[in-house]
């Protein structure tokens, strides 16, 4: 039980910090809408609806990167991570708390992105909403681990997209498939499988990333 309490405290810490500083979420909202507007001009006139769905997924990936580069910014600037690692709790609780906070941030950005997409481009189906929800979990699970790696490096913001993009190509495949494929169930199942595998792997390996 104390594990879950630790996770809850850590997640609440990140959410409260964001509520007070408003550093990340407003930037993500503005970014995702700007990207959709850019894509409107990037698409040729008369492009198929399927192309628009593909671009929505590209916008979501880039928005996730934007949010994730800030994920450990406060910890790094205030040197909090050392303290968290020394705290008498399981290190994976840090990962889980941060992942929950990132999922909330992503959900807020998507709550703006999907209506904006429906307004500007194509209708949003329930399958698309389910795919976006599953994809957010995957982005947050993998992204939090990689953001912790990137935060320890000199390249920082530069490194995260390089680590993140090859790993989330399967999510994009699943997401686009669930949006335009004939059989969305298969792709949703694939997304769920991805989430399960990489969440367990990230949860188990986070300790090694933050400790010596």
């Amino acid at each position: 039980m104390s594990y879950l309490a630790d996770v809850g405290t850590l997640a609440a810490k990140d959410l409260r910090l964001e509520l007070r500083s408003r550093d990340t979420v407003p930037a993500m909202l503005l970014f995702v809408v700007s990207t959709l507007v850019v894509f409107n001009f990037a698409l040729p006139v008369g492009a198929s609806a399927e192309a628009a769905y593909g671009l929505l997924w590209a916008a979501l990936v880039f928005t996730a990167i934007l949010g994730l580069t800030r994920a450990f910014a406060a910890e790094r600037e205030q040197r909090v991570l050392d303290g968290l690692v020394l705290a008498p709790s399981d290190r994976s609780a840090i990962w889980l708390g941060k992942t929950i906070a990132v999922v909330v941030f992503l959900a807020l950005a998507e709550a703006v992105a999907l209506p904006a997409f429906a307004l500007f481009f194509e209708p949003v189906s329930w399958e698309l909403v389910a795919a976006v929800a599953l994809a957010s979990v995957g982005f947050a699970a993998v992204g939090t681990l990689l953001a912790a790696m990137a935060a320890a490096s000199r390249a920082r913001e530069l490194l995260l997209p390089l680590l993140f993009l090859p790993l989330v190509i399967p999510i994009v495949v699943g997401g686009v498939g669930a949006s335009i494929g004939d059989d969305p169930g298969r792709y949703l199942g694939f997304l769920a499988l991805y989430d399960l595998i990489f969440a367990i792997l990230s949860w188990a390996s986070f300790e090694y990333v933050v400790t010596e």
Partner: protein
Amino acid sequence: MLAAAAAGLLLVGIALAFYWVPNAPIEGFRQRIFYIHVPIALTAYACFFWAAWKALRLLWTRDQSYDLESYTAVHIGVIFGILTLVTGSIWARTSWNTWWAWEERQLVLFLVLFLFYSAYFMLRFSVDPGPRRASMSAVYALFGVVLIPVSFLAIRLAEGLIHPVVFDEEVNTRLTASQFLTFIVCFAGMLALAASLYVNELTGKRVDERLRELREALS
């Protein structure tokens, strides 16, 4: 020893591939690149798995010497990965008259892996040497071998979705005895080549590290 074995096996393999194996029924003469391309690809996988195995050992035992071994295996794996892309591209050019075919799953998978493992080097070069870098690199190398089957599944799923399947499944996937033997000789040769490169590179990297330690001790 390893280098000699690699040279011998590869020479015999290439000789077999060009002078002994009959032309393939549909692909004809150009199918012979199969004996170069596929062993290189499998060797790259072997390197990546070896890197992940060493990474797992490092995380398990905290023995820092595994770090260089895992790094060297990724290094050799990326070289073989690039060769896979190049030979695959040549094969695509001769078979389908295009240098790149998104329909060719294995080739797309190698592109994804190439990007993934290139980022491994970026990660290593931008973190200060030490136990933390070792365990971070190890975690990343482990993610790599999990990504291989997941990406393969994803590419299969994407295939029917984004591009119509133009090429039939290989019409004749069963190898004849002579083809199989040639393939095995070439594969053994490539593995021996990778192993000898690995041993050489590992020695070099260890010397480098030792030298750096000595320099730091002196200054």
